[in-house]
């Protein structure tokens, strides 16, 4: 049973999203990190990068696979979690906490309507 906190939003690509003021903090879900296995590297986007909804903008690598993480909304990357460079395993041990990936300033509030809530995400992954 994967951990699905109630206080965040989700996408059907297994990302989570939580607002800190105007800025959305983004990561991948417990289900995602469990499927990927121990992560060995995270390819982070550059600060200031502009992304569109569903752009593949982060790559997470385990020993046997490299997976894309898709932007859950359009906007600008305002901060990245530099700790992941030395410790990619934070995503495995704390996917909703210390394993956050980056922060995006959204450019189109309308996109927020497409996000799933915890119950909807749970029905997706079981």
């Amino acid at each position, binding site marked *: 049973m994967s951990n699905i906190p109630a206080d965040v939003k989700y996408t059907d690509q297994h990302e989570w999203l939580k607002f800190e003021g105007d800025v959305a903090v983004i990561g991948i879900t417990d289900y995602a990190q469990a499927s990927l296995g121990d992560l*060995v*590297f995270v390819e982070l986007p550059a600060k200031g990068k502009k992304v569109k909804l569903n752009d593949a903008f982060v790559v997470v*690598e*385990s*020993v*046997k*696979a*490299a997976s894309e993480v898709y932007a859950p909304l359009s906007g600008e990357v305002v901060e990245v979690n530099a700790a992941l460079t030395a410790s990619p395993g934070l995503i495995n041990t704390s996917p909703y906490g210390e394993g956050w990936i980056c922060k995006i300033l959204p450019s189109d509030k309308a996109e927020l309507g497409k996000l799933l809530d915890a119950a909807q995400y749970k029905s997706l992954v079981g």
Partner: protein
Amino acid sequence: MRYLPLTPRDRTEMLKSIGVKAVDDLYVSVPKEAKLSALIDLPAHQGEIEVEKALTLMAQKNHPAANGPFFLGAGCYNHHIPATVDHLIQRSEFLTSYTPYQPEISQGTLTAIFEFQTIIANLTGMDIANASMYDGATATAEAALMAKRVTGRANIHIHGALHPQYREVIETYIRNYSDVSVKTSAPDANAACVIVQTPDFHGEPQALAALRKQCDESGALLVVVVNEILSLGLLPAPVEADIVAGEAQSIGVPMSFGGPHLGFFACRKQYLRQMPGRLCGETVDKDGRRSFVLTLSTREQHIRREKATSNICTNQGLFALAFTIHMSLLGEIGFKKLARLNHERACLLADRLSKVKNIKLPNKSFFNEFVVELPVSAAQTVKELAAKGIIAGYPLAGNKLLVAATEMTSEADIEVLAGALEKLSATARTKEVA
């Protein structure tokens, strides 16, 4: 047939177990038009005696280096290979094993690759090296592509005399890129890299400090190409480089008409994730014992597919091992000694040839190869001398001949070449006078 163990009885039993009458029933999905009922028009099977005879006859139509004075280099060198090398690479466990994807039963291969990577890194003065590439030309092309990935820039600059075949391969590899140009000018803001071969194609060792400065100022990467790896035993390590790529055939690998040879690739550690090719790394097993394993495979084609750093799948495995064995035999003392010996033979050659009338030696410096300016056509000279059993060197344009000397070059060989050139030179002058 000696390689096919199944007997007719085996086949019958197996067909019965599967539940079909004939092997043809297993090819059920093959369209009728593609099924051949008759044998393809090629010779029937032959025993070892006949096959060996046929191939020996073909081999005898070739003139190997050992048959006479030999001065050909140009990116492939006639060096001695100790008996131990060829013996060890024919051990079943090395020769007939696969890529070490199951590390628990491949520590032999993996340990040797780790040693190979260490040796290449030390030779080149770089932080990291991969498990080898196809050859020097493709390693150079891959270095150029990597520089493009790292810098995000378009152009490839070549400084000085790069082996013409290496340039051709780069041009093939970038053929379908819309934005790339190969230039020979100094690097600018669009330069991904500057490629410099040392010793260059004319045998001249290159100073790298000025190029390093140009690269620092323009933001391009410095790619140093070495295709006579033995030169690294006498010349300084190219520590100014970002990437060092080239050809290691000189150590442990027969000339073999051009392949298989042994490309190598080394670079600074910050570029690790953009490196092409296989990498072997150190780790521990469940019992805490030191072990080696292929690692960082997520750069490679079988995982990243269209986003891979290269489409390369194999390395030159067995010949990376041959190189490692030969380098172990040579060691710190022997490698430097062998390099110096090569240089001294080249000096002997240069001294003797400079005594031949109307011959000029334009090189300011050399390791074991240099240009000779003849009074006659180099191509014609090579042809005439070959008819006399002398492989004189590689003809460059016009009257220029590229000659190499190695530890296999004797004083007697040098005398034969010099004598033959003296004769040619005399004939030429006679013709001119007449």
